[in-house]
């Protein structure tokens, strides 16, 4: 089932400067792994030790996956997956 991934500027060198890409995927991890097949190097920027990297926030339709099922969060047709760097502290 196709979902759209919004690519942050910092990762666009890895995706041929595409701002949005469409991939199939039943979960967030599945979508990231399929993206990795097309654009090698993306996964290591997003995933570490089986979890989303601490410095990255991943949202499914505006919902932070940490507050759902993490990388196992289910995806459905038409979902928008947004990747943003985490911001904390002053």
């Amino acid at each position, binding site marked *: 089932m196709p979902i759209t991934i919004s690519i942050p500027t910092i990762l666009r060198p890895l995706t041929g400067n595409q701002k949005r890409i469409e991939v199939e995927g039943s979960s967030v991890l599945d979508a990231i792994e399929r993206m990795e097949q097309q654009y090698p190097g993306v996964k290591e920027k997003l995933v570490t030790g089986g979890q989303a990297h601490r410095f990255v926030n991943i*949202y499914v339709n505006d919902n932070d996956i940490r507050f*759902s099922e993490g990388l196992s969060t289910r995806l459905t047709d038409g979902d928008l997956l947004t990747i*943003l*760097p985490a*911001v904390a*502290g002053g």
Partner: protein
Amino acid sequence: MSMNQPLTGCVMKGPKSITPDFAPIAVSFLYQSEALGIQTSANENCAGDEALCFEFETPRTAPVTCEITRWEDPSRQGTVSENIMQAACGLMSVHGRTHRQPKPLGLNYVSTLTAALALQGSIAASIGRLRGLPVSSSTVSMAAAGLLSMSQYIAGATASESPETTKTAETTRPLPGSFPACPPFVSLDGVIFELETLDAGPWQKFWGELGVNSAAAGKGWRAFLLRYARAAAPLPDDLSLAISKLTYYRISRICAKTGMAICPVRSIDDRAQDDDARQIWQQGPWSFSPSSSEPKPNDEYLRPDSALPGGDLPLSGFTVIESCRRIQGPLAGHLLALLGATVIRIEPPGGDPLRGMPPMAEGCSARFQALNSLKTVREIDIKSATGKAEIRELARHADVFLHNWAPGKAVLLNLDHGDLAAINPSLVYAYAGGWATDCAEHVSSNSMPGTDFMAQAYSGVAGKVAGAGSSRGGSLFTVLDVLGGVVAAQGITIALLNRCMNNASAKVTSSLMSAATLLCAEDFRNIYSLPASGSKPSASIINEVYVTRQGRIAVECPDMDTVLRLAEVLDITAGIENKGFQRCLSEVFLSKTADQWVELFQHAGIPSAVVIEDLADLQTLTHLQPGLTPGSYTQVNSPWRFK
């Protein structure tokens, strides 16, 4: 000479009388000077209404003039004030974002920043003279200081890719007389407090304990994280509701269990009673401790022919190694770069994640660039043996090493003051922390993350802002990160002058807490019943923001003469003691636009400014343009001009 008064022997001469709008700046300027051991005295040559002038003299240099003006554009005349400048530079609108309407901060913020930058400018100018630079004066304007405080927000508002506007800050308008659902929080028993965590885990567990569903906690987390960037944090109502059903004690217990930090909003009186408060107030916002190693002869960095390669700014030729994240430390490095230093910024392999934080400008976060665009970047894994060796090698040839690592990390990395001073005895080692000063190691606050909003709550700054009626407690504008960055850069510049004059190197520690003490220095002076350094500023008769036919206007009448001129321009016959006077003012202001009123008031000598509500408008204003450089995002220029 005491190490905590490293400028003993220097003299600062200033005017005998000071115009009222410059008074808060002069008071802070003299407090800072005296804390450094500088002897202050009056000088007839420093008189004048157009600018506030001091003369700074060291035992080894001729006097340099320290000039403080109101605007960058010298042709713009007329008195201003703290609130007028907060309105004109956008600070009021950023602070007021949580309420969707501009509000004065309730602190002498721009004045304190201006004083700190002015003092730093004169010290930097003296370093320049010692190094053979023909510099005789430094100038700072209040407007430049105000714009500097807004630099990240201006960058965000003017970024070439999806710029932020106040309207997109996702704020909700609260009901009249109420406060919006955003930090700080209020418990069942009425305690106002801040929560803090830098990780999602404690946040998720905390709200789970309070029975808030994960989706609402997740939405709240995003808003909570972004409050540093957006000065707004609209939280789902579920969160405020859940927390309002528990006592502060109960909430504290849940915090302890889940790893969330909590701090009540305290008053300045509370803070003044802390063991370390009076000492920090007395020593000023910097703590200097000498290096035990013998520095190299200072002639080595005083030789003009070798000291100023490729630049004619006071710190040209000096090298600063910066290992800092977020705002406070990077701003300190940025200010040193503006003074001419070569700043090498250490980032983790892959670069600082904040480079990717929207909005973007030419492939990099505009906010990030606002603080880091002048630096050279070296990606180093500071935890690896190779990385540590690389940092030691950089420090060996540097003049300054600046970090804002978590407390204790420098010791763990073997990159503490002693470690690097052993390699380079002339190195100025600087720590820009949250809580830590040399005398505050045992303060209970050390167990909390040393972030802006926690420091505001603990230090009494949040309580003071609340007392001014503009918030429930504190500001989501990063009040202390910005001032803390200025204080850190100032401390380094002071240590560099001391090194040039006395061949003595040092560790400089500054913190958000010490910046808070500087910001409220006069409150502490009053609590401790100590004599003032200068004439005490008096409260204005009118100091308000009014809605006009188009836009808002900030107006200040410091004395009765100005009130009478205002009444004349507005054609109001009711006396100020009349209860209808304020209502009358509010009605009359609706008859013209804010721009029209300001023009009329300028001719009448009434301090006023259009309240900037969209930061992107700043670059269109003639009187602020000298302080800004448009581009893929609008950059705030150096606050200093040297002649």
